């Protein structure tokens, strides 16, 4: 097993607002190993995006605050105590990130080229000409045709898929060891989605970087991930390899998610959905947070459940019925 690149433990990112304290991320732990692809899945509002932004410390503080006791260790270095300067040295260089909305993630008033070269010149100290050549190369690498022309175009002249490719090029530019991809395909057409995922997988293989893929779509997870973290209401509810999770989901929530996935073998059946919505982060239910929506709820669910390791595997789940 390769070494641990990123280790998040007991991460609590809370939002302090007038309406109360929103415990968006409430004690999340997981780790990413070098070269692997870890997926984080969950419905919107479960805290997965906040988790990813917390790693790069990109959340506006206030209102957000990473509570004491949390820890994010990247390659042996504790990030939560790091200076802003150190964080900037890491961002875009060691750890880079691509976002959900390719339409709005690129600055509309600068050319694609200048947005790529920015990171190159900052972190890799290239001069203007070198950076431009490298930018064109990167655009080619992410599959943009006519790269030497496109490099001078503005984001609005590109399609959504192309823009996401540009985002990936920016993220790749400094050969990061960890790429955080926050719902990279959600806003794209299905055909483009597949291309982008393929591209990501291919690049990971070539550059040997780890990928932390945030998504709500288990289908995506199945396609590209090695391991999965399932999040619900600010907490991790289940962890395991893709095969394990898909074959033997333990937590009722995970099962619910899987049931709502269209599958070839279940054609003709109604797709199931989980009733209800994720509760408000200022007002998590006491006890099991999924209890209200759980079809298998019992009295014991009124008590907060710890994460339980399943057997001697690396799998953990947060349900009292998960048999060890």
């Amino acid at each position, binding site marked *: 097993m390769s070494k641990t690149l990123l280790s998040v433990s007991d991460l609590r990112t809370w939002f302090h607002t007038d309406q109360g304290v929103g415990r968006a991320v409430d004690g999340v732990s997981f780790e990413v190993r070098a070269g692997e692809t870890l997926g984080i899945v969950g419905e919107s509002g479960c805290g997965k995006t906040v988790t990813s932004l917390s790693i*790069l410390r*990109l959340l506006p503080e206030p209102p957000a605050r990473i509570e004491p006791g949390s820890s994010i260790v990247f390659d042996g270095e504790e990030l939560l105590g790091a200076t*802003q300067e150190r*964080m*900037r*040295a*890491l*961002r*875009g*260089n060691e750890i*880079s*990130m691509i*976002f959900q*909305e390719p339409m*709005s*993630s*690129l*600055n*509309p*008033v*600068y050319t694609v080229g200048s947005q790529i070269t*920015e*990171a190159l010149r*900052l*972190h890799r100290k290239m001069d203007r000409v070198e950076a431009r050549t490298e930018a064109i190369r990167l655009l080619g*690498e*992410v*599959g*943009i*045709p006519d790269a030497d022309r496109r490099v001078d*175009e*503005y984001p*609005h*002249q*590109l*399609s*959504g*898929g*192309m823009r996401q*490719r540009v*985002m990936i090029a*920016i993220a790749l530019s400094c050969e990061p060891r960890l790429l955080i991809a926050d719902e990279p395909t959600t806003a794209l*057409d299905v055909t*483009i989605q597949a*291309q982008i995922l*393929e*591209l990501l*997988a*291919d*690049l990971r*293989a070539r550059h040997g970087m780890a990928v932390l893929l945030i998504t709500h779509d288990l289908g995506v997870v199945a396609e590209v991930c090695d391991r999965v973290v399932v999040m619900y209401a600010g907490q991790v509810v289940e962890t395991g390899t893709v095969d394990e999770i898909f074959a033997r989901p333990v937590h009722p929530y995970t099962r619910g998610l899987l049931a709502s996935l269209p599958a070839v073998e279940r054609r003709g059946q109604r797709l199931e959905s989980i009733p209800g919505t994720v509760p408000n982060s200022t007002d998590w239910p006491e006890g099991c947070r999924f209890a209200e929506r759980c079809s298998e709820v019992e009295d014991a669910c009124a008590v907060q459940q710890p994460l339980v390791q399943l057997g001697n595997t690396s799998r953990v789940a947060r349900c009292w019925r998960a048999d060890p």
Partner: protein
Amino acid sequence: MTSGTAVAPNDEATSVTEGRRGGDLSRYVLRRLVGAIPLVIGISSIVFFVVHLAPGDPARLLLPPGGGDQDVIDQIRRNLGLDQPLHIQYVKWLGSFFTGNFGYSFSQGAPVRAVLANTFPNTLLLSGFALAVAFGVGIVVGTIQAVRQYSAADSILSVVLLFFYSMPGFWLALMLVLMLSYQARNIWEWPIWFPASAMVSSDFGDLSSVGRLADRLWHLVLPATALSLSLAAGIARYMRGSMLEVIRQDYVRTARSKGLPERLVIFKHALRNALSPIITMVGVYIPMVFSGTVIIESVFAWPGMGRMIFDAIGARDYPLVVAGTFFFALTVVLANLLADVLYAIADPRIRYESDV
């Protein structure tokens, strides 16, 4: 996952080449200019009739109190061509207009063209300077306020700028005269004080060229301050709003995720986007500045066109009023056009399809 790096299908053809943008720009400017002609002529014509229809007879004003009889008044009217029917005067005015002659200003005793040539540049200098200061201050303050939303600095800057904005312009101007001219020089004996009026000192001719530049700037300080302080608050307010919107945008987060220092994130990525809507405000602010000059030029005895038009209306100096408002309107139209062009330059997404 075999050939993931295959060339992506060119799913959308949105590319517009730079060359076409350039061609669009000049055609757009031309179309706007042509469109502005009826607007400006329309405004001038309305002013022509409004001023003519206002009661009062300029010829009477040219008589000293106590003297004169109706014959003299009639003769003055004949000499000035005011005895002709209004439509004839209008046609004559239009004619003189197209020859660039603009007629004769009887309240200033000089051809309108000469009067405008002497006063309009002064007004442009004052308003240009005031606008530059107002936008400079407004943009800086608005940015600080947005970056530090709801902080003490945000509130204090708001209140300070709003305080000046809330002062009636003439009162602010007179206060500046009282404080920074009289009090500063005579009472507090500060080393720096500013002249209360005029564009240059009376010994201007004896100064070196550096001295002359300094003298002009020295005289600009009070009127430009008075004019710009009231504008800066509005600009800062829009800038704050615009900046607040922009710094919540994804691309600002992208910039941060690249590891850019905060300074670059704000001043390179956010500011340029936040500025675009501010640029179009030049078009809104120029008429405001021009209105402001009427009062400011009076207080500071600045020989400009705002004050000139006001006096000309009082004197029913029709040719001067009409020509003056024509140039004001023209400047406003050109400024709007300039603002739109600048906007388009600042924001590459804008194409000149419609006159926004």
